[in-house]
């Protein structure tokens, strides 16, 4: 290894490696654009994304409608902007739930050991033996009725309209389905991290010096485990977006009037021959987004684990 100016900050080093990686910077630019689109796009969108204009359906791209209009005359550009919000919000929240559950159950498993560890990890293993999308599909088909029923119950008691809002309910079903299929992977990662870190000399040293449990967790476990967690969260982000659009494509995710790129593709697929742009635009946008997140996840992985790089 060449002698370098030594820096004490691991995070700064990782950040420098990340910035030097041109592909991940490109991915980061795309991601920032998508995030801005998701946050501000709906405010700037030229039309209401649910407004139908039956006199101007299936139009090609024009100055008034940049991406044309769909089969109900809705402005495609506005729907794409709203779709960005759906895709990002669902991916972020469902990844958040998966990792929240994973951190909770993974650390319980690692700390209690014995039969608790066995029970949690065996359950996780069995869930991981389902094909990911198939499990998400099955869970979403299963929880739809119970969720509908309980939400209507809440509506009856409170009178809050949001509990009858089908798009709001769809969001919860997708969160449930993606979290059910996603948490075992997070739990396995976190359990493994905790178990291997506990074997490290610096933890043994801290214990020997009389450090308390939570001190070890705060000073050693969290800072060391956070890198792999961030990498796996980012790497899984693109997959979560894909899973949302797949469920929506299949008609069991976010359904109209909500805007999802997956649902937009499936609605326009019948007319692919006459109006190819209606399928191509949401498809390309989805593909570019997922690609950007995967690329950035790879770059982050290389930056945080410089030794793992294969080349």
């Amino acid at each position, binding site marked *: 290894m060449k002698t370098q100016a030594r820096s004490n900050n691991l995070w700064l080093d990782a950040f420098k490696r990340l910035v030097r990686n041109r592909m991940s910077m490109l991915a980061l630019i795309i991601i920032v654009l998508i995030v801005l689109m998701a946050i501000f796009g709906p405010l700037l969108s030229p039309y209401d994304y649910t407004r139908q204009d039956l006199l101007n359906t299936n139009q090609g791209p024009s100055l008034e409608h940049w991406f044309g209009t769909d089969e109900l005359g809705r402005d495609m550009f506005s729907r794409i902007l709203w779709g960005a919000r759906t895709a990002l919000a669902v991916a972020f929240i469902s990844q958040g739930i998966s990792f929240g559950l994973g951190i909770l159950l993974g650390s319980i498993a690692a700390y209690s050991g014995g039969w608790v560890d066995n029970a949690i990890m065996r*359950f996780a293993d069995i869930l991981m033996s389902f094909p*990911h999308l198939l499990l998400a599909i099955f869970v979403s088909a299963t929880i739809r*009725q119970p969720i509908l*029923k309980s939400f209507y119950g809440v509506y009856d008691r409170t009178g809050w309209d949001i509990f009858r809002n089908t798009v709001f309910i769809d969001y919860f079903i997708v969160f449930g389905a993606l979290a059910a299929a996603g948490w075992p992977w997070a739990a396995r990662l976190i359990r493994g991290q905790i178990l291997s870190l506990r074997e490290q000399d610096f933890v043994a040293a801290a214990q020997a010096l009389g450090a308390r449990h939570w001190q070890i967790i705060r000073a050693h476990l969290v800072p060391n485990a956070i890198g792999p967690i961030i990498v796996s969260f980012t790497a899984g982000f693109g997959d979560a977006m894909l899973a949302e659009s*797949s469920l929506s494509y299949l008609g069991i995710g976010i359904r109209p009037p909500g805007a999802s790129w997956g649902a937009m593709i499936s609605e326009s697929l019948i007319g*692919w021959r006459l109006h190819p742009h209606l399928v191509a635009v949401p498809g390309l946008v989805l*593909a570019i987004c997922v690609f950007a997140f995967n690329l950035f996840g790879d770059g982050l992985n290389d930056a945080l684990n410089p030794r793992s790089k294969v080349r």
Partner: protein
Amino acid sequence: MLQYFIKRIAQLVPTVLGVIFITFSLGYFGPGDPLKHQLGERLPSDPAQLERLRKHYGLDRPFHVQFSSYIGKLARGDMGISIVVQSKRPIRDMLGKALRTSVQLGGAAALIIFVLGIPLGILAAYRKNTWLDYVIVSLAALLPTVPPFVLAPLLLILFVLQLKLLPASFGWAGLFDSRAILPLIILVIGPMLIVVRQTRNSIIEALTQDYVRTARSKGVLEHKVLSRHVLKNAMIPVLTSMGFIISGLLTGSLFVESIFGIPGFGKLIYDGLRAYDYPLILGTTLVGTLIILASNLLVDLLYPFFDPRVQFG
């Protein structure tokens, strides 16, 4: 070796039971009254009659009794009947018919993936850092992330509308029909590029090993170095990815078969979802998962032939 096989198969039993248990209990607690699903609008409104029906179908029995009877039925291949998609038809028959189509399609896809993917990976590894390698590596980074329901319309637009190379073709008339070309391309392209990348990386890795240098310094011909030393070691990670590839093919077939109207397993899942045919959804989930478990087992059983160290593990 035999001991290893028996051990691997025995390890699978609790997992299979766990998978059945999870699908059954989700179905038991989840979607509401199974009678309502079976009978739909013909559900009798008279409570006494409803009670008799529950007794008739054994739905009044406690959970564990129902579960063991479900296992017994599964062992005989009985997975209940479809309610909506093909009313009253046994799901077993529907699955059998669909799988015959999907196995052809998926088998052909898997064959193409490995027969084309591995040589392309070797080529990229030996031409490392040339334009050919860059093209292959960038495609392998880009295309596997594109979902089939995006790839399918884009390729339809490209091949049918723009280039006019293929007729717009939907339906299924066997594997050796022009209508199978586009679905196969869409199924194959992502997983194949994963195999290419995997092969390339593990061959580059293997080429740096000492045993390769030793073999070369002893004057072993390069193609023999490749076939005897490099390939055998480099294939282990590729073999590991096989389970993942088959899982991808299964999920991919869901989209490809529904888009192209191919009456296979994926189409069956799709139809079940669209019609909310819960017994069918349950049956396809279960069988899909068992297929993946079986293919993972197959990979495990193939390991010792590639890596002699495994059988002691």
